[in-house]
């Protein structure tokens, strides 16, 4: 557990940096608000409509694909570490695993999920 002391110090510094810089700015900055200044910043373009628009459902489908292959990636890490000891057997086991999940990728491809409408 002792190895995480540097991580803890790092985290504390991150949080402290945010709090201190925001607090100091609040104390030091002048307050002269006017309408154009309070507008939502959209890279200089005039903002219109609401921020709450319905996003295309394609985002959700991509997220679904992502989470399955995220779970797949999780198994690759212990697999790589055990690979040297187990040899060919480990390779075959992982190829079968990837092939089964590859069917899901193929299905998504067939359903034209990967094309962006």
């Amino acid at each position: 557990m002792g190895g995480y002391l540097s991580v803890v110090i790092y985290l504390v510094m991150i949080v402290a940096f945010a709090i201190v810089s925001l607090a100091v700015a609040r104390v030091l900055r002048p307050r002269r608000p006017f309408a154009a200044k309070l507008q939502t910043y959209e890279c200089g373009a005039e903002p219109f409509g609401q921020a709450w628009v319905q996003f295309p459902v394609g985002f959700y489908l991509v997220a679904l694909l992502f989470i399955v292959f995220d779970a797949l990636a999780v198994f690759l890490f212990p697999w790589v570490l055990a690979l040297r000891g187990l040899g060919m057997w480990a390779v075959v086991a992982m190829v079968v695993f990837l092939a089964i999940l590859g069917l899901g990728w193929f299905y998504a491809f067939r359903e034209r999920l990967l094309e962006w409408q």
Partner: protein
Amino acid sequence: MSADVLAFWFLAIVLVGSALAVVLTKNLFHAVLWLALALTGTAGVFLLLDAEFLAAVQLLLYAGGIVTIVVFAIVVTERLVGERLSQTSRRIGGGAVVAGGVLALLLNAMRGQPFPAARPEMAGDLTRLIGETVLTRFVLPFELLAVLMLAALMGAIYFARPDE
């Protein structure tokens, strides 16, 4: 008080606080952000127990994946667009009673059990051990897991695909 104990209490406060915020906050979107904090705190608990692999999985799958799914589920839902995303927790009293009952049951079960003063040291690289066990002893469940994930993925695609 050792660093472990200090870290545990810090994580405990963060976890309980963020979990309460998830169910009590009015804004649905803020609830999701609190959920992300709660899931990250759980990863911290895993780190405290020397389960680095589990902590990484917790961050990758839960704080990274599940939260993404929930956020996307909110922003693509037609009925929520333009509404104020508010949720009200009705029956807070009843929920508190049930939560208190569960806590009492757990405390009752734990009472009288001796707590080990120090957790046993983990021998060797845990991640490597997981890999070796998964690929030898549990190789069949491992492959079946791929089938399960395939079924879940295909089902999700089938239901969520755009209409022709």
